């Protein structure tokens, strides 16, 4: 059993998520090699082969070239499984590689049971158990599902790879979200509004609840996308990652992208009228109620 791991660099830095791929390979008991487009100054600390393509030449986002580089390495390594993070990089590149190899792909794997990959479905309310029918397969791993414990250590055997291919897309650099005035990472208490608040006007009652707690207002992605709350208050994968003493999730169903941004909170209260909402899985306390009715009652109680 041999796994080829596809690591990730962003703005010249090796992403820590690359080690989650290592944890996955270890769990499978697989022999591993790692492919990454990055630079030599930050090599992954693993005992094994590392194929490195220079990001200065191949670019950090260049699917055509990255695919070609990876296919060359796959031809050489002959792995049974090609492993990506289920990230903006991984979910973009993995299907291209699967299509070129004519093999099956299983996305967002959270576990492996008896050789079958377990993946979430319907906002994590359900799971599916999937087996590839092809001898070789491609998988992407849910962020945080396979955690790497301890400090990465190891000395890789480095092999540099390059390709002379041409690309059909042109990467024009990164755009950083404008920083608002709010740094939620320092907040002790965060009260976040989710889609369940219903409409923009209702955000005010959540803001009042945050004030009654002496905390900051946060928000989930749909609320920010709808323009109800500024992006600087977004908690989750594409927003801020927070770890307050108390996190109150109001009308937030608990999509993995949101959970990734707040699961390190010391104490998590979820207010949701859906008793089966996935947020209930991680909450210390789930209050089953309509947040628009419950929030005023709680504000009243906090004031009294």
């Amino acid at each position, binding site marked *: 059993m041999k796994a080829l791991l596809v690591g990730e660099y962003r703005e010249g830095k090796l992403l820590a998520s690359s080690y989650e791929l290592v944890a996955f390979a270890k769990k499978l008991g697989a022999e591993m090699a790692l492919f990454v487009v990055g630079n030599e100054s930050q090599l992954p600390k693993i005992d094994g082969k590392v194929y490195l393509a220079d990001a200065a030449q191949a670019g950090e*986002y260049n*699917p055509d070239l990255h695919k070609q580089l990876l296919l060359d390495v796959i031809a050489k390594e002959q792995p049974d499984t090609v492993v990506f993070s289920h990230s*903006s*990089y991984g*979910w*973009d590149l993995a*299907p*291209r590689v*699967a*299509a070129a190899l004519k093999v*099956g*792909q299983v*996305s*967002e794997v959270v576990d492996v049971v008896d050789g079958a990959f377990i993946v979430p*479905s*319907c*906002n994590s*309310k*359900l*799971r*599916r*158990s*999937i*087996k590839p*029918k092809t001898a070789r*397969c491609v998988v992407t791993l849910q962020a945080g599902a396979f955690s790497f414990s301890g400090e990465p250590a190891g000395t890789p055997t480095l092999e540099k790879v390059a390709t002379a291919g041409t690309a*059909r*897309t*042109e*990467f*024009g650099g*990164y*755009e*950083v979200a404008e920083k608002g005035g709010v740094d939620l990472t320092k907040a002790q*208490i965060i009260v976040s509004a989710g889609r369940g608040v219903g409409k923009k006007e209702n955000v005010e009652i959540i803001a009042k609840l945050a004030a009654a*707690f002496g905390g900051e207002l946060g928000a989930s*992605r*749909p609320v920010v*996308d709808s323009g109800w709350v500024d*992006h600087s208050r977004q908690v989750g*994968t*594409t927003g*801020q990652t927070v770890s307050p*003493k*108390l996190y109150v999730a109001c009308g937030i*169903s608990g999509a993995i992208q949101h959970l990734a941004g707040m699961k390190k909170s010391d*104490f998590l209260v979820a207010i949701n009228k859906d*008793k089966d*909402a996935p947020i*209930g*899985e*991680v909450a*210390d*306390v789930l*209050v*089953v109620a309509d947040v628009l009715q*419950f929030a005023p*009652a709680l504000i*009243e109680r*906090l004031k009294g």
Partner: protein
Amino acid sequence: MKILVCIKQVPDMESKFKIGTEGIWYNEADLAWRMNEYDEYAVEQAVQLKEQVGGDTDLVVLSIGPERVKETMKKALAMGCERGVHVHDDAYYKKDPFEIASIIAEYAKDQGFDLIFTGMQSQDRGSAQVGILVGELLGLPAVSTIVDFTFADGAISVKRELEGGLKALVKLQAPALVTCQLGLNTPRYPTLPNIMKAKKKELTSVPVGDLLKVEEMVKVEKMFVPEKRSGGLVLEGDVKDLADKLVQILKEKTTVLK
């Protein structure tokens, strides 16, 4: 100009899901169906592009599934798509992402679409594979997870959403495929006159057998409800009592309330 937008009908994610009798999919009885959220942004962007380039732009909406998916397709038509192609497949849930992508590619090949829009993933399966696979099968450059799209004379500029608030700027040339992320635009609500007009728009059905030429690459063994993580306290009842109970708990378990 020719534009294709691919959409999926999915259940409301707030539904209470049960496993169906075959054990590989959810029970579809009593579910409320709607357009996959990501696809609403794809439809909106396709309609905006049609409005921008004008002329006799052909904007086709495609969906795969049983008879009921036509209802969701009518919404896309009411939003501004010109005509619909319904790939009739009652066993759609047994198809893996490769089969779904192959069906779409088989339909789209040789038709000369300048742009293909899809959602970046579906809400029920969330594989995020189908759009990119369609691009690969058709030999088109594809960019996933876009949150900004501009088009001028065949030149496409997009922003890809990455993690932590970062976006990547990417340029490419049509013909191309893009997969749409939430927040790309503001999907319009169909107006009543447009809903009426949509009823007269062309909506053809094609049996899936005409387009499916491949076999699945992965097999779903079972679908199941995950075990509930125990430990969390569930409070139910009158809101005033709930507020009292919660404050009591917070005083005991945290240091944030005096």
